[in-house]
């Protein structure tokens, strides 16, 4: 029996639903030295902004049981440098390249979209959910009004499909997802990190200079799963499930909860080959269970 892991998003075919999550995979180069990243369905770039960003000062990473908190603060080389130096290299790999796009203002998002129109990524993942920058980004994703406005403008301006990465910190993530769909989004990815904090009792202060940071890893998986399930039931565009996926079994949980795709983030730090292992593990499961296509199990719960 032949089984296929293939999935489509707005006419774009992905050979499988496994995508490396933004911020955990750089621009793919480092991982491509460990395994052929062409086995992945796609790669989301490190979050990009129009201007280069130096990122946050102070501690940027903190471990907590079954999770990590990060406060990187969107350090990136800027969209133009990315298009010039990183994208041509990434396009050589046999996988879909999704540009994760952040911004402090609407104007900044739109300038980046214009640059990307003259370039050839496969898709944009509109980041309105990063909790680690002082201005913009997550502020756009907190409610349906803010999200709909920026999504509509980006969709109107972009020649590439646009998926929107949502924050679990939103007032109501289901309503934000519905608003994104109505504004023309081609898909929604969720969840970005959960706003969280850590305290250093010896220093008697917050661990992070920004006080709050983003929690990811297995600790948030059950919450992510519930949100994916709720959003899946409310929208008809594809849902990309993210949050604490550590192995192929976790990935299948998200598919069964309704996800078309899944993104693997923190797990890349635990095992840099995990992306490949998830693709192979899902394949084996389907063969064993006699499942020909992921459609058979998607959203069965």
């Amino acid at each position, binding site marked *: 029996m032949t089984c296929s892991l293939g999935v489509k998003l707005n006419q774009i075919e992905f050979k499988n639903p496994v995508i490396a999550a933004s911020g955990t995979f*750089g621009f793919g180069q*480092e991982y491509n030295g460990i395994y052929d990243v062409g086995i992945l369905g796609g790669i989301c770039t490190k979050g990009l902004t129009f201007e280069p960003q130096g990122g946050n000062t102070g501690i*940027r990473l903190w471990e907590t049981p*079954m999770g*990590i908190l990060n406060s990187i603060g969107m350090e990136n080389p800027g969209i133009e440098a990315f298009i010039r130096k990183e994208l041509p290299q990434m396009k050589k790999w046999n996988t879909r390249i999704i540009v994760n796009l952040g911004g402090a203002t609407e104007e900044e998002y739109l300038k980046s979209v214009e640059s990307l129109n003259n370039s050839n990524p496969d898709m944009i993942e509109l980041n309105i959910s990063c909790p680690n920058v002082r201005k913009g980004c997550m502020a756009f994703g907190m409610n349906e009004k803010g999200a709909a406005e920026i999504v509509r403008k980006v969709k109107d301006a972009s020649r590439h499909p646009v998926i929107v990465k949502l924050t679990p910190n939103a007032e109501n993530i289901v309503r934000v997802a519905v608003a994104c769909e109505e504004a023309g989004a081609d898909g929604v990815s969720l969840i970005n990190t959960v706003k969280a904090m850590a305290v250093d009792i010896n220093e008697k202060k917050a661990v992070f200079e920004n006080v709050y940071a983003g929690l990811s*890893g297995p600790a948030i998986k059950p919450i992510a799963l519930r949100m994916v399930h709720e959003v899946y039931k409310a929208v008809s565009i594809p849902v990309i499930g993210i949050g604490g996926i*550590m192995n192929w079994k976790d990935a299948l949980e998200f598919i069964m909860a309704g996800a078309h795709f899944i993104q693997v983030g923190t797990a890349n*730090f635990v095992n*840099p080959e995990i992306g490949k292992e998830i693709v192979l593990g899902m394949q084996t499961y389907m063969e064993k269970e006699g499942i020909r296509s992921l459609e058979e199990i998607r959203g069965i719960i």
Partner: protein
Amino acid sequence: MALIKGNKKVAGDIYLLEVEGRFEGKPGQFYMIRVAEVDPLLSRPISIFEITENGIKFLYRIVGEGTRLLSKKRQGDQISLRGPYGNGYPSATGKIAIVGGGIGAAPLYETCKKLNNCNDTTAVDLYLGFSDEIILKENEWERICSSFFYDVGGIITEYVDVAKYDIVMTCGPDVMMKKLVMEGKKYGKQVYVSIESRMGCGIGACLSCTCITTKGNKKVCKDGPVFLGEEVYDL
């Protein structure tokens, strides 16, 4: 997975781990060591202490949960490690000073061993400073360098005359490394420092360990951990 040959306490909260197998690595590079399958989630970056014919050794201090769990591992246990990562110390000849403070001595063993063996005209002087007691035995350090000096409870940089060396390599507390970099600048000598940082991936993808240098943001795990001192310290 690799087999642990030994994991013994060598001083206070300092342990020497030995793992069996053929390993590669330059002095100053590190391995990402996993102590558990998932919790703690992150691997621990630990620098190479020594590479032997059939094994690799790591000298580490217990600082948190990961290293505490690592110290509980016994001979015969399995451990997962990936590497080597990072750039390592440069090769050099001539009169070389190697200066370590506390657990900063860890990457300097292999560094001394490699540099000291490179040719007849190269002389490697090793200076180590400890706060409570020497790590390992005096003769274990003596045999890998031209001359060995150590001090307990004092300030090791007071004993290093940077002016008489061609190059200095150091690892330890910031205050110690910075002092050497300042001396190096005064006498026009290159001082290489090894920077410590919290790391997520260890391979240059997550930007957790970014360090601000005169040449812009650098990744400690990939561009470092060894940098030219004047590039990382604001003098």
